[in-house]
């Protein structure tokens, strides 16, 4: 209150000569926002507009003079081009498997490192988080050899574990057939095999759940302990406590992780480029949406196609986000009420 009076005195003392306090505040504020506002115009709004316009043209960067307006041709092309259709299917397949697995693994690890009974919590949290901080090209190269079908460690581990299970089952009479199958199991050669290439990429992706895990962890720690006590008094076991207390309370962070993860899956590029090259080897199995976009725009210099692809992606992400925000009222629970 005192401050308000003080400012009143100041403004009345110097009438009209200066801007009013609120005008000055606005001016200063806009000044501080200006880097972002200028950047928004220069590096986001104008490029978006250009990209939208270019999506209706045939544009070759090397020969800008030959630019032609082709109206919806680029969009028509997308829906008939087999590469684009393949890339779309590959990305959807990738997202449908990778988003839920990585989210639930992140949640599981977060619950694990949040256990009161766990010794050395901080060490575990750091180690589970660390892979995110390893530069992407290097971590992809590590995984590429780690998963090698000839000398990769995962092959040794999988085959040794399978052999041990086989030896164990071999003791039990009547399971000879199953035992032999375990003993002769051959680990997949991930990135040289058409059916294992996408699972291989997803496996690599699981290494990078650190951010999601930390966000889940913070969400779990924010759940008031009284809620658990109340649930226990009502006779709820661990599962019902999780289902009826934990899940609703962490649904906002779940929503956030889910949204960012879907967007991340749509923007997937670096790992697959390092592993599979611009063609998405083997046999286009890993030809994700952005490889197609990169090829069209930079390898074949068809910028119009690239822009149309980018806008389709934008519309899809926008649609998915809108659906998520619309339906979020039904499954996301904000403890603080509406915001």
């Amino acid at each position: 209150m005192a401050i308000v009076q003080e400012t009143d005195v100041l403004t009345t003392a110097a009438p009209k000569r200066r801007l009013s306090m609120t005008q000055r505040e606005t001016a200063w504020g806009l000044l501080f926002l200006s880097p972002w506002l200028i950047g928004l115009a220069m590096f986001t709004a104008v490029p978006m507009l250009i990209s939208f316009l270019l999506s209706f043209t045939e544009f070759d960067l090397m020969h800008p003079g030959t630019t032609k307006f082709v109206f919806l041709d680029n969009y028509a092309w997308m829906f008939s081009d087999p590469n684009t259709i393949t890339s779309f299917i590959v990305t959807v397949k990738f997202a449908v498997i990778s988003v839920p697995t990585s989210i639930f693994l992140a949640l599981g690890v977060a619950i694990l490192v949040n256990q009161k009974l766990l010794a050395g919590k901080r060490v575990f949290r750091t180690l589970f988080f660390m892979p995110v901080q390893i530069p992407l090209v290097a971590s992809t190269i590590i995984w590429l050899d780690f998963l090698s079908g000839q000398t990769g460690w995962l092959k040794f581990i999988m085959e040794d574990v399978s052999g041990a299970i086989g030896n164990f089952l071999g003791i039990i009479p009547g399971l000879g057939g199953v035992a032999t199958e375990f003993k002769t199991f051959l680990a997949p050669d991930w990135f040289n095999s058409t059916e294992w290439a996408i699972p291989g990429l997803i496996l690599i992706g699981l290494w990078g759940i650190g951010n999601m895990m930390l966000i889940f962890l913070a969400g779990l720690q924010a759940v008031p302990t009284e809620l658990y006590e109340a649930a226990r008094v009502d006779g709820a076991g661990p599962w019902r406590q999780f289902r009826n207390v934990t899940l609703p309370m962490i649904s906002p962070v779940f929503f956030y992780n889910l949204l960012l993860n879907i967007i991340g899956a749509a923007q997937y590029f670096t790992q697959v480029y390092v592993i599979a090259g611009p063609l998405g080897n083997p046999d286009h199995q890993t030809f994700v949406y952005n490889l197609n976009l990169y090829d069209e725009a930079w390898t074949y210099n068809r910028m119009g196609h690239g822009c149309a692809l980018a806008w389709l992606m934008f519309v899809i992400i926008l649609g998915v986000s809108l659906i998520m925000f619309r339906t979020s009222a039904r499954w996301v629970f904000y403890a603080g009420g509406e915001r």
Partner: protein
Amino acid sequence: MTSTTVPTGLYTHRSRRARKLGATLSVTAIAGALCLLFVLPLLYMLSASFTDPKVTSIPDKPLYPAITETVNYRDPNTGIETELTVYDVPGYGRLALVDQKFYPLESTFVNPDTGELKQIAVDTFSLRPIWHFHMTLDNFTAAINTINPDFGLLFRNTFIIAITGTIGAVLSAILVAYGFARFRIPGRDGLFLVLIGTIMLPFQVILIPQFIIFQSIGWVPSWLPLIVPHFFANAYNVFLLRQYFLTLPRELDEAAMMDGASPWRILTSVIIPQSWPAIIAVTLFHFFFAWNDFLGPLIYTSGNEQLWPIAIGLNNFNTVYRGAGATSMIQAGALISVLLPVAIFFVAQRVFMRGVVISGVEK
């Protein structure tokens, strides 16, 4: 009744502690096993980069850096000396293979210690070599000598891009976050929503036109497209700093304002000195982003290898030498490239982890 409850109470007290210890052990064991899976790829990198390149293609080598035992054998007839691999021959022990014949023909072996020759009918393809622990730095020298352009240039380029970009990202984010946190501007909440919305904007939509613009003003190939846009504030950084600024008490600002300090003074002498944890987090985030960035340098610098940062150089190194089977050299190169980021991470891990939480949860 009472005479029995007292000892039982004591007994259950002790068994409850034992049970708690058991639970702690089993939870820790589960976490440890899962954690081992997470760390395995890194252990693989370490092991592979210290393993002698001669043995990298042998499938069932041990997981630690090792080399097969060999012996120099002089053929008594020809006098030619050759290096032979020593195998563990079942029923005979350590023997070096001199002359290989297809089973059931007899192959010739020599005892590496006594030089005595032996004819044994054995399937030589099923024999396992004898391994000894052996570490070598050859892969690192090979990687350093082979990678193109050299590591010195790659690191220098990465540092220039990362440090200039970080300066821009941090300064602009501080200004913008201060604007959002402390000034009542008409339409501020709408602008803030736009800011958050740009996080969800797929980068593809602006990638091509940005490239066209930068190309047309002659910035391709150069580092400018990788640095200049960061001087205009990034949504993540602004969000993180704004959340932090909002937690600072306003009383100090107001006191400074009463003393006639300008908003600029308040920022530099009140807000920034209180915000070092968040500012350091943003600094590290951007530095890591720049170190990591791949698609940007790929389209803006691939035309000129003298401009390559480490991400592009390492990818090129991998693409060129993978076909030649130089696994251990490639792993050594990867190890060199991650040393600094991993070291920074371990020194500043708490800052990172708190930063992730601030930008993720407090939305």
